[in-house]
Each structure stands twice: as C-alpha cells, then as structure tokens.
C-alpha cells in the first residue's frame, strides 16, 4: 500500500496507542469525580495538559481539549462571537479555509454577520494592505489557517499577528491543524489556535484549542466545568494523554523530517511537470507535505479510483469536503474553474519512502496514459 493522504489523517504511532491503552486501563476514573480514582485521572489529565502547553509554548491554563480541530474551530468562532457580540458583527477570513471554518461562517452570514474574504497574492499569501483596509470598527475576528489543507499554503501568522496588535478589539484565530508537527509554530501573536491529534500520528477524537489568557469564550457545549470551563463533557483523559504523547513524538527531529519530505516533494514536482495535462496548483513555497495538482480533462475521482486499484491512496479536495463542487481554495489561487474542479491532493509524511514515490510516479504515469487514451476515444 502506498498511502499519500496524510493530510486527511495519519496512521497512529504505536507508542501513542500504547500510551492510550495504558491510560485507559490504569486510570479508569472520571477525571471530574471527586473521589481518589477520579483525582488520579485528573492528575494524569493535568500532566498531559502541561505537556501540551509546554510543547506549544503557552500556559497550562490556555489549553482546551476538544473532540478535534473542527470542534476547536467552531468553539473559537462561536465562542468569540457569542462572548463579544456587542463589539461587532464583521469577520475576516480567506477562501482557503477548512469547511469547519467556512461552513460556520456561512451559518453566521445567514444570522446577519458580515463575512469578508481577504485578497490573496499569486502565491496565496494574504494581502496585508487588503487586510488593513478591510478591518473596521465592527470587525471582531480574523480567522485563517496557518497552512491551508488543500494547497499547503503557509501564512506568516507571526507577521499577521503583529499587524493585528494595532487593532486590540480584533481577535486573531489561527487554524493550525495542518501546521503542527510539520513546521515550527510560534503562538506569540495569536489569540486562539486550533489543532488536532489525528493529523500528528495520534488517535482520532481529540483536538485542542489554545486560548490565550486575555481572551474569553462562550462555551458551545454546556454542562459545567470539566477540563476547562470552556468545554464540557467527561474529560477524555486517556485520549488527551495520548495526544500529548503524539505531540511530543511528532516534534522530535522535525527539521530532519521536514527536509526528507521536501526532497520527496521536489522529486514529485519535477516528474509531474513533465507530464502532459498535469498542472501543479500548490505554489512553490507551499509546505512540502501537501501537493495539489489538477489533470485537465480527467475527473479527479476517476484518477483517485484508478490509483486505488493499484493500492495508492490520495484525495480529491480535502477528505472533509468530498462533494462534487469545485475547490474554492484552488480557484482562489489559480482563478481557473477547470483546475478547481479537477484538483487532487497528494500528501506526504516523514514516513513516506523514496520507493513509494517511485511506485506512485510510475503508476500515475501509466494511469494517466490509460485515462487520456479513454478520453480520446
């Protein structure tokens, strides 16, 4: 099997699974229970929280565990707009965002909020002048992804945060789901930051929202104090512990891992560029882990299934938005409807080997030929 869909989800690291098993079996109490068994679980949860906080360079009190990045994104947006609703109703974002951002904003638009999409340059970076000109007295939130999930475009969140410091009423949320574990993350200028466990070789079902101290949120899941007052529900202490472990492991030698992925990415780019009808949508300075391409005239699903026949797995758009509509993100960057409708995402990992890439390229080439031939018929 050649798995090239790491941005959809990653295989669970065995060590992480061991942590989970151990935590589940040895810490059976509910961390909210007042008895000693509960307290034991609570202490494990606290230690996991501390570890996540230390690794992310924030305070322990700033870590809110959620069920995943989608919930973290929802909590960030809904939490802010409900808490600060008297401040304004204007939100800024980009067309590159994950559906858990865009759909939430669509919902808010129907509720009367004004959603503005920031201009991007040809490499997909946010146009600073446009950002400054769009912020007004009514703006309460800027929400963007550090690394876009479809194209791998990296935004300079440190710089953007620096600019937003001049607008103290505007809260800055960053979706870091595709960034954590891949690039060096700096949360100094960010108010809220989401990420998830299953993108960093951890288990599915747990994520995190970092909420800086000076920000308040209205919970979206009510039910009283749990791990934090911002998110109710029985704390999933074993999942949180496994998440903390996954984060620690993924950050080990991340520079080496990055270099490895970069080499693989360059190899694929070099080969694909020579193939007819294949265009690369990811700008050159995108993260090497994500390579978005389009094949003219061939439905992306067709290629996806053809590759799957040979045990190679990639994705169309993002796994979370698998309907037939075109990719907003690809269209935003390429301004080309055909490309936006036929985009495929190849996503790599430090686990990906050279041999896998060779096999992929070889298979891709032959499938392309096959499908183009059929197209000709």
């Amino acid at each position, binding site marked *: 099997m050649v798995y090239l869909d790491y941005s959809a989800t990653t295989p669970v690291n065995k060590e992480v699974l061991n942590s989970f098993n151990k935590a589940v079996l040895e810490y059976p109490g509910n961390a909210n229970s*007042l008895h000693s068994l509960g307290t034991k679980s*609570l202490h494990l949860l606290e230690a996991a929280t501390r570890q996540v906080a230390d690794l992310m360079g924030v*305070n322990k009190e700033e870590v809110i565990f959620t069920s995943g990045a989608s919930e973290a994104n929802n909590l960030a947006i809904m939490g802010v707009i409900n808490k600060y609703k008297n401040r304004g109703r204007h939100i800024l974002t980009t067309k590159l965002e994950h559906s858990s951002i865009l759909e939430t904003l669509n919902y808010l638009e129907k509720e009367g909020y004004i959603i503005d999409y920031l201009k991007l340059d040809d490499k997909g970076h946010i146009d600073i002048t446009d950002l400054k000109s769009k912020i007004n007295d009514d703006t309460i939130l800027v929400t963007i992804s550090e690394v876009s999930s479809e194209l791998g475009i990296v935004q300079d969140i440190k710089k953007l945060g620096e600019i937003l410091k001049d607008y103290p009423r505007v809260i800055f949320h960053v979706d870091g789901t595709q960034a954590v574990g891949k690039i060096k993350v700096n949360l100094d200028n960010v108010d809220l930051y989401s990420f998830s466990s299953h993108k960093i070789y951890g288990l599915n079902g747990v994520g995190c929202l970092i909420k800086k101290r000076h920000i308040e949120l209205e919970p979206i899941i009510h039910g009283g104090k749990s791990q934090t007052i911002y998110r109710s529900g029985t704390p999933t202490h074993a999942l949180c512990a496994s998440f903390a472990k996954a984060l620690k492991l993924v950050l080990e030698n991340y520079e080496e891992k990055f270099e490895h992925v970069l080499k693989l990415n360059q190899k694929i780019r070099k080969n694909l560029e020579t193939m007819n009808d294949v265009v690369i949508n990811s700008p050159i300075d995108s993260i090497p882990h994500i390579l978005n391409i389009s094949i003219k005239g061939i439905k992306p699903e067709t290629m996806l299934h053809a590759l799957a026949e040979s045990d190679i797995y990639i994705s169309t758009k993002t796994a979370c938005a698998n309907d037939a509509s075109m990719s907003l993100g690809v269209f935003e960057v390429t301004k080309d409807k055909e490309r936006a409708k036929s985009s495929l995402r190849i996503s790599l990992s430090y686990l990906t080997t050279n041999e896998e890439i060779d096999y992929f390229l070889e298979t891709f080439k032959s499938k392309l030929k096959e499908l183009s031939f059929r197209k000709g018929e």
Partner: protein
Amino acid sequence: MNRVILIKYGELTTKKGNRKLFINTLYSNILKKLKGLNVNIYRDMSRMYIEYLDKDQDLILKNIGEIFGIHAYSIAYKCDSNLDSIKETISMVIKDNLDNKNYTFKVETKRSDKRFEPNSIECNSIFGGHILKNFKNLKVNVHDYDILVHVEIRNDSSYVYLNEYKGLGGYPVGTLGKCLAMLSGGIDSPVASYLALKRGIKLDLVYFEAIPHTSLEARRKVINLARKLYPYAGDMKLIIVPFTKLQEAIYKNCLENYSITIMRRMMFRIMEKLTRKYKALGIVNGESVGQVASQTLTSMNVINSVTNLPILRPVACFDKLEIIEIAKKIDTYDISILPYEDCCTIFVPKHPIINPRLDTCLEMEKKFDYEEMIDEILNNLQVINIDNSKDEDYQDIL
C-alpha cells in the same frame, strides 16, 4: 581552586542572645533545602560556608535565594590566610570573572582575625597595588567603582569574591514558632503567608472548603498555592476544614447582610481550636483594611472578638497593587486568579454590612448550635502534607 558559597546572615546578627538559635535554624533549613546534594556546610557566628560540586552551583544558588534569614551570598574563593595566597587568589577571581574591558575597582578587606597583620586599610592598598600591577584594564576608584573586590580574612582561611547576590532577608523560618495561615485561594492570603514566613514564622495552612458549593478544583488551586510557598516554607500541613454544613446553617439562620460577618466569626472560632490542636501560637491571614466589607475596622472588631489569639495581618496596610507585585514575585498570582469559587465568594450577600453590631451577631448565633457543628468539623478534618514529593511524572504514558 576551592570555591565556596559564602552566606551573610540577615537581620539575625542584631539578636545577640538568640543568635545561636537563629544560626542553628538557618543551618538546618539550608541542610534540608540542599538535601540530596553533595555539600559540606560549616559556620561561625557571622558567616556560613557551603562547599559544593561545580555541577550543582546553579541549583544551589537558586535554592539559597529562597531561604529567609540570609542577607547576601556570593561565590567566594577560599585560600590560606597569608598575603601571597590571597594575592594569588585575587588574580584568579578576576581572571575567572572579568573580561578585558576597562573597569574601576575598590578593594574592601575585612579581618575577623584582628591579630592578622597588616591591618585592613593597609591590606586594601597592598591588594589594590597587586591588582593594578597585574591587570592593565583595572583602575582604582574608591568612590565610584564598577567592581568591589571583597577580601575576608578569617581565622584559618580567607575568602575573595566580587559579586554578591541579595538574599531574601528576614529570619530563618522556624525561629519564631508556628502560626496557622488561612489560605483561601485568593491573591492576598498566599502573600500574607509569605510575609509571615519572612519573619521566621513556621506555618501550617488552613483551607475552609464548602463542597459542593466550592469545587475540587478550588481545593487543588489551594494545594498548588501551598506548593508555591513550599520553597520558602519547607514542609507544611494543609488542613482542610469541611465548612459546608456550618456555612449553610449560617445562611439559613442569619440575616443575609450579616452572613459574611458571622461566617468570619465562625472561621476564627475554628482557627482558635485548630491552633490549640496543631500547637500554633497565632493566626495569619490576608485581610487588608477596607478591601471588602468584612475588612473594615468595625467588622474586624466584631469578628476578632471571638478570639484572644494574635492575628497577624501582614498585608493589612498594603495597597492591592503592592500585594499583586509580591504575588507575582512568588509566582502565586497566576494561580490565584483562576476563577474558582471559595468559601468567601459563595453566598455573598448583595449588601454585606460594613458596620456590624456585636449584639446582633450574638443574637443570631443563638439560633443554631454552632458549637456542635464545630466539633463535628474538627472530627472530620483532612490533612495534606505539602512536601517535596513531586507529581507523578507519567513517563511511561506521556
């Protein structure tokens, strides 16, 4: 070179009769604090010296910086008490600690051994001359100097050092007996406890808990605050007082605006019994005059009348900002501001009385048998030891 950490005693040098007790207490506090490290500590009536392994230096300096009863401390080079040996050591100290930039300096010699010849003033010029001759970048300026070269000539050895770290001052914890400190979880009480420790008072801590009105998180917050005090305090007990029933009885039986006043009176009644039980000599709390309704002088009078024990209120006359400054210094502030309710914040009346009357209190207190409740409370105390046991590290999981 034989390096030692040289410790100058704090205010205790003025306490002639009790000096020995103070020094011994400081000695045992330092021993406890450096437990597990390979050190040798020796002392005389004005200095203490710690011999240590180089690798432990930073750790020891950090620990010494958390001990009350120390005026100042420094890394001193030890040598024999003769001029040549001292000169050689001075050269070494300068080489080890200064770069080649231009500095002005002054030599300050102290002889505890007055038989040593030449005398201190002559020594200053001899050592100054030695430095001038050997270090072209150093110039004398006895009024406005960058570097102060300390030379201490004592009976069997001499010590040379440049930099001095400021100690915390105060008295060694334990020299003045024990008090019970009321720790609520707020900003003021940890600071009050810290200041009491500074005056040499050993502490056990008391936390009034009203589960389910207060949460277990509130208790953990208090435990974490106690842990922050631990580096200064050493081992303490945290006594947890189950206050729920009594507190509920107060709200059932008393006028709403008197509830806080009566609650505080009950707390002090319990504190008095606890001081007896835990052999303490007084109570420490974080009251600050005028901060809340129960902290007006009228309130304090009515509340205080239930006990004859000394109640120390170290922050009584501090502004809130001054208290916060200390809370930040001792790293309790961030814990204190966590939003968990404690006994004093639940059931807060809309308009607590600012000038309560004693007779009204007494009348209301007749309505229920608080003595029995207090007895029950005393039978159900929980005690948590605050010591250096660390949290589990969960290495196998995390």
